């Protein structure tokens, strides 16, 4: 149905290549375009920010603690008098990178396992569902402690302290969040693989890989995109809890989630401290979600605009 509509040339409509077609549909989604721009601005800000805003992130000045926004400190200071703007710029790199990378890991692993389980009718499907159930039941805290204990020093040695920890965090967060995606994808696959158009493709001799990639997956992407966009927020917040286990970045690394956590006890004294990191997470989440919505509409094989 979808392919047919696209392929049928009509007098008034020009034919676009699939990529341009996707972009054409995406760009019609105004919020998505604005959001993509917003996300780009955020990423630019955390990348270029340190060169423009040159205040040190760990300059302690206890006398100037918990001050609201001012010219010297546009986002105010925390209880030790450290500049929140500088800390947010520094921490934003980590938070955004961790959020996006962990989301990619969880979506990729989840989709892969869910697709395999959804297509397989035998032991493989059962095995993969068993694996999913296992990961769902594992208590995360002891597992994390075990992982730190087993791998921290090795990864540190191999990739340096920052790189090693980044890899570990992304793998841990992504590796512990793929299960809902896998279950959702599998459920979609179970239903879609029996639909007429897939049967038609099968009857026409499409290989299983082609069935999946061209026919089933595009129709199963809806929940995956939603899960992925939600995962970005979850990963940014999860990163902050990891540093409480000694797994995350060193305790003085001001990631957004960490700033929000530190600020929570000062909510009634210095609300600005929570407001800015909370706002930054929110903006990133909103942007990524609208991009997700846009992508969804653009990739939706059934929708004709």
């Amino acid at each position: 149905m979808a392919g047919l509509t696209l392929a049928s040339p009509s007098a008034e409509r020009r034919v676009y290549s699939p990529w341009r077609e996707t972009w054409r549909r995406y760009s019609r989604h105004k919020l998505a375009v604005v959001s993509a721009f917003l996300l780009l601005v955020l990423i630019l800000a955390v990348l270029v920010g340190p060169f423009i805003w040159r205040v040190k992130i760990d300059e302690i000045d206890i006398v100037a603690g918990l001050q609201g926004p001012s010219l010297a400190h546009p986002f105010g200071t925390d209880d030790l008098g450290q500049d929140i703007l500088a800390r947010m710029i520094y921490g934003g790199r980590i938070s955004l990178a961790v959020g996006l990378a962990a989301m990619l890991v969880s979506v990729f692993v989840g989709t892969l396992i869910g697709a395999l389980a959804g297509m397989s009718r035998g032991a493989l499907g059962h095995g993969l569902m068993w694996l999913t159930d296992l990961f769902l039941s594992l208590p995360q805290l002891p597992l994390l402690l075990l992982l730190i204990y087993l791998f921290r020093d090795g990864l540190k040695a191999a990739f340096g302290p920052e790189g090693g920890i980044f890899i570990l965090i992304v793998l841990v967060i992504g590796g512990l969040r793929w299960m809902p995606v896998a279950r959702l994808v599998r459920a979609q696959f179970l239903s879609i693989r029996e639909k007429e158009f897939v049967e038609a493709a099968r009857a026409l001799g499409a290989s299983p890989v082609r069935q999946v990639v061209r026919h089933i997956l595009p129709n199963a992407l809806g929940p995956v995109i939603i899960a992925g966009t939600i995962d970005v927020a979850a990963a940014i917040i999860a990163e902050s809890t990891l540093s409480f286990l000694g797994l995350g970045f060193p305790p003085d690394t001001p990631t957004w989630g960490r700033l929000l956590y530190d600020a929570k006890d000062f909510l009634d004294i210095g609300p600005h401290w929570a407001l800015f990191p909370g706002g930054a997470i929110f903006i990133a989440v909103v942007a990524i979600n609208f991009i997700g919505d846009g992508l969804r509409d653009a990739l939706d094989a059934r929708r004709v605009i």
Partner: protein
Amino acid sequence: MSQYVLRRLLIAIPSLLGISAVLFFVLALAPGDPFSELATNPNVPPEVQAALRAKFGLDDPIYLRYVHWLNAMLHGDWGFSFVSRMDVDKLILQRLPTTLYVIGSAQILALLIAIPVGVYAATKPYSLFDQVANTLAFVGFSLPTFFTGILFILIFSVTLDWLPFVYTTDVKATGIHWVFEMIRQAIMPVAVLGLFQAASMTRFVRSAMLDVIRLDYITTARAKGLGQAKVIVKHVMRNAMIPVVTLIALQIPAVFGGAIVTEQIFRIPGIGSLLISSILSNDTPVVMAVTFVFACLVVLFNLIADILYGWLDPRISFR
């Protein structure tokens, strides 16, 4: 179908056994010590700490400890808490009612919000209602519960003084007042947790509905002159339910597992807080029992979800 269910249940036994073995090894290998608090107590010589470890079998080889545990479990003995020195099943049963009440209510609240809002938003995509619902959902899942919990406390307990924020199982009232107090103290935790979950669930429901709502047969149904409400409920929802059922099946075991952060903030004596304190004090028998029950629920609800898929979409066949 019944044969399929029976076979799945039979498969569940070895798979649970496998899960239990992995759980046990992870817990046993995870670093920590149930007696760490004794470390800085000058009255307790280090050899006492070592003797305690030996007494509770913490120095035995892991596979041996697993066999002991499995054997006891098969005989209905859930184990003995190192930290509380009492039977694990008693500890869990003490906390079950509160967990079911608070966390269960939160899940129901989440569903009651997510399904109608998601469905309605999907029928009018990009309308004002949809935009507002989406924005609220984004706020919902970008703010962690540790934050909203404190915000609620500051507003409703400290500033307005409407609600208590320390949950107590020992409500000093009887009859209708008892019911009233129980509801009053559960409002904040249920709201915090329920709204957090409703936020992401709304997005899933909306997306699932959107996926289906544009399909041909829906258009056909509309063209046949069926009323909007009827179309939505009978045709769209049933087909959109597959991802939703999946999500609910993922959430229900969590009702038993509790919600660690929310329970901590409001001092709810649920299973989540038992689990976290047991993990932090490496009280392996308790952690093992809780996670094992949790694993059983995960497997069970996965099975139930599979059966429901077949009912929602009869074309899904299971062999």
